[in-house]
């Protein structure tokens, strides 16, 4: 083979690689469009009038950009109440869950407290379908006259959020080398102060992301809110479901309120993607 032949071969290979690369990008772009389409449809839906929803062929972009749907959704259809109640429930639940979870996680992660049986208990709670808890909790909350209050949601969300937070934060503690506590203990710090002053600050970023997760889970929760609350407390998902229930669905207002409801989740996806896979696989994959 002459030198020219070899150069030509390399050129052909190079060109083939480039073509494959272009195909790869076209495919990625196409798939991305496919998966973003439903979100896009909700987005433009928030700017459509009622008539534009019942238009054939469907309108693939909005004709006008006005905020009427948002205004009506928030002020005429209980969206504002939903927003405030969701914020209250999700914030309070997050504070309680992180407050309890950090200590439980440290105890389990560092001292193997409860061993495998406690780990198994926490995991089972994490995996169990929430619907199986609804009947007993409903009857208990009813007897305690707690239905349709903020407390009922703040407390019942502990059931799935605390196992989640504990499991994830436990993983973050396990990532921190044990030598740090040992050094602090040798310096004469108590066990608690060694944890508080040396380990906790190192785990703080992980804990903060876990808190965001817990917040989103509470924010998105629908089943418990549907069963345990009615009108005094109404979180966004319940408000949304109520707007679908009627005989005349207000698609525009519904889209507008949906857009508001999904914003925190989208922000989390955009800015904390590094931790997202770790959270969603319950810490099994450390992205």
């Amino acid at each position: 083979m002459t030198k020219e032949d070899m150069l030509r071969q390399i050129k052909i290979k190079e060109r083939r690689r480039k073509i494959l690369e272009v195909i790869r990008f076209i495919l990625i772009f196409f798939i991305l469009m496919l998966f973003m389409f439903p979100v896009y449809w909700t987005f433009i839906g928030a700017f459509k009038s009622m008539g534009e929803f019942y238009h054939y062929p469907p309108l693939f972009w909005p004709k006008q950009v006005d905020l009427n749907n948002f205004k009506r959704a928030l002020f005429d259809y209980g969206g504002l109440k939903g927003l405030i109640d969701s914020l209250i429930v999700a914030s309070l639940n997050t504070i309680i869950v992180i407050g309890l979870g950090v200590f439980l996680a440290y105890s389990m992660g560092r001292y193997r407290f409860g061993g495998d049986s406690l780990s198994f208990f926490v995991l089972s709670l994490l995996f169990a379908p929430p619907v199986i808890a609804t009947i007993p909790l409903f009857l208990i909350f009813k007897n305690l006259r707690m239905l349709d209050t903020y407390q009922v949601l703040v407390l019942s969300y502990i059931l799935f959020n605390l196992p989640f937070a504990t499991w994830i934060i436990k993983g973050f503690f396990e990532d921190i080398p044990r030598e740090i506590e040992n050094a602090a203990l040798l310096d004469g710090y108590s066990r608690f102060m060694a944890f508080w002053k040396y380990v906790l600050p190192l785990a703080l970023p992980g804990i903060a992301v876990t808190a965001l997760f817990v917040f989103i889970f509470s924010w998105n929760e629908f089943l418990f809110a549907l069963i345990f609350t009615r009108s005094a407390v109404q979180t966004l998902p319940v408000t949304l479901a109520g707007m679908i229930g009627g005989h005349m669905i207000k698609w525009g207002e519904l889209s507008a309120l949906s857009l508001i409801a999904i914003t925190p989740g989208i922000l989390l996806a955009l800015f904390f993607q590094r931790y997202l896979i770790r959270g969603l696989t319950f810490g099994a994959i450390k992205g």
Partner: protein
Amino acid sequence: MKKKKRSSIRKNELKFAALMALPGLVALIVLVAGPLAYMVYNSAFSKSLAAPIPPRPVGFKNYIDLLKSDRFWNAFKNTMVIMGIGIPVQSFLGLLMAMLLSREFKGKRLIVALFLIPVMITPVVSGFQWKIIFHERFGPLNYILGFLGFNPNIPWLAKPSLALASILIMDTWQWTPFVALVLLAGLSSIPRQVYEAANVDGASSWQIFWRVTMPLLRPIFTLVVLLRIIFIFKIFDPVYILTGGGPGISTETLSVYTYYSGFKHFNVGRTAALAVLQLVIITIIAQLYMRFVMRRREEVQRS
């Protein structure tokens, strides 16, 4: 003397660990043990939320009735169909996407972030989004199908078999990117040297895929399948919003059936029995998961 000192340190340690764990543990036990006992107890009674009839004990009758009822097996079957079709389809598509994304390129981080949006969206909203998309007359899906020359009048949500397919499509939309990104994490954890060695040995890309990539991805696949089984067992919000289990009971999943049984038919006993059954199934799955995680940890420690 020394031994005594060590054991006192152990005791001290245990006391500290117990104190730290206490608040969270108490919260969990109060929230779980009480309701759990109450539920198992209720499953042995005939009791209604609606009628003021005093509950009467019926032993295992609720369980037997459940196992004899068509509606329970219908919900069971639907859940299994979603798993049986959804998980393989999502794994296959997810693997393709992961391989497309496996090379570094500009803007990859943004694309990965965008792919995470479907799993982070409020599930009620995903149900509602697809309700518009599947709309028989004004939805974009039928319009696009018509545009491409297919039948533009598919009754997605009105025909039982199609309604279940619609649920599968929605679930695939929501979870395939997640599966893809988990598999991507698995792909990028395979050391480059492994591929280089295979290349030197003159293996074709096809051989490398089947003999190197796939076997090394197996643990990650196991993880994805286990997680998807767990999530599909829980699936409620989007199904409830998209079809409400209908038409008829054609798309009722276990969670949706449990909800109706409790809060539409007000049958406490049967719902409790349903819940206990699901709890047993999920405990078995959690056991499998624990074993899997343990094995992985050992493997990591060995390597």
